[in-house]
């Protein structure tokens, strides 16, 4: 398993560099080609889903939350909470 992890990272890097570059990387990792090609197909679908504008919050929700945050900023309070 250890060898395929850097091979996958290498191919993912080539995913946006065109089919020729990707084919070159797959040739470089010929031993794992079949598995890498399958995983890259899934990645393409996930990236396509991530590119869509939806799902998105409603404008009303965004506007109300912004108003709440800006009100918080205007109110002098003891700040110093942590990141969770």
């Amino acid at each position: 398993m250890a060898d395929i992890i850097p091979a996958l990272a290498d191919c993912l890097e080539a995913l946006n560099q065109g089919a020729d570059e990707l084919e070159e990387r797959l040739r470089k990792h010929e031993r794992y080609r079949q598995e890498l090609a399958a995983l890259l197909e899934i990645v393409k679908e996930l990236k396509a889903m991530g590119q869509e504008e939806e799902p998105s919050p409603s404008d009303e929700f965004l506007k109300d939350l912004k108003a709440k945050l800006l009100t918080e900023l205007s109110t002098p309070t003891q700040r110093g909470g942590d990141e969770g």
Partner: protein
Amino acid sequence: MQDLRLATLKEETLVDRAIAGDREAFGELYERYARRVFRHVLYMVNHLHVAQDLTEQTFLRALEAIHRYERRGVPFLAWLLRIARNLYLNDQRVQRNNSSIRNKWDGGAAASPESFCEARLDGEEVWRAVRALDGDQRQVIVLRFMDGLSYADAAVVLGKSVGAVRVAQYRALRALRRSLEDGNLGRHYPSSS
């Protein structure tokens, strides 16, 4: 409304101003990242009202802790998503301690991740497979391929090393492949060799 002058400023400048108490600068950071935080959380919880609540809590925590941000040396979005992750994990713990199961869409007519994904070829089955992953694997997939974060930024969010993120990414993709091949209509990824 978004201030066009602020919209052209670099993130570091906005953060510096927000730390100094500039409301408009924090507002601009919010404008830049609120949708992305919401989407990330929604992909994780699949529940509109919980996603809204966690998005709100994320920005309120950010407001409280922003004075500590500059020492982190990481993109603001990664820092926000780390806060969101901690809140998500807390929420999961609370849910585990409650008997109620909260895994169905409650957003009425609003588009759920599933209904949105159904509009894409194969999107629904891919999304179902993502939802079936365990929390950490699902988050790696969402961070890397749907949010588009680098390994380094995903590592910040997850509190792991870059190497650990690469391993988790591979395992999550392998689990997705298995799920799609075994569980969904005999889907098969042809060999390109």
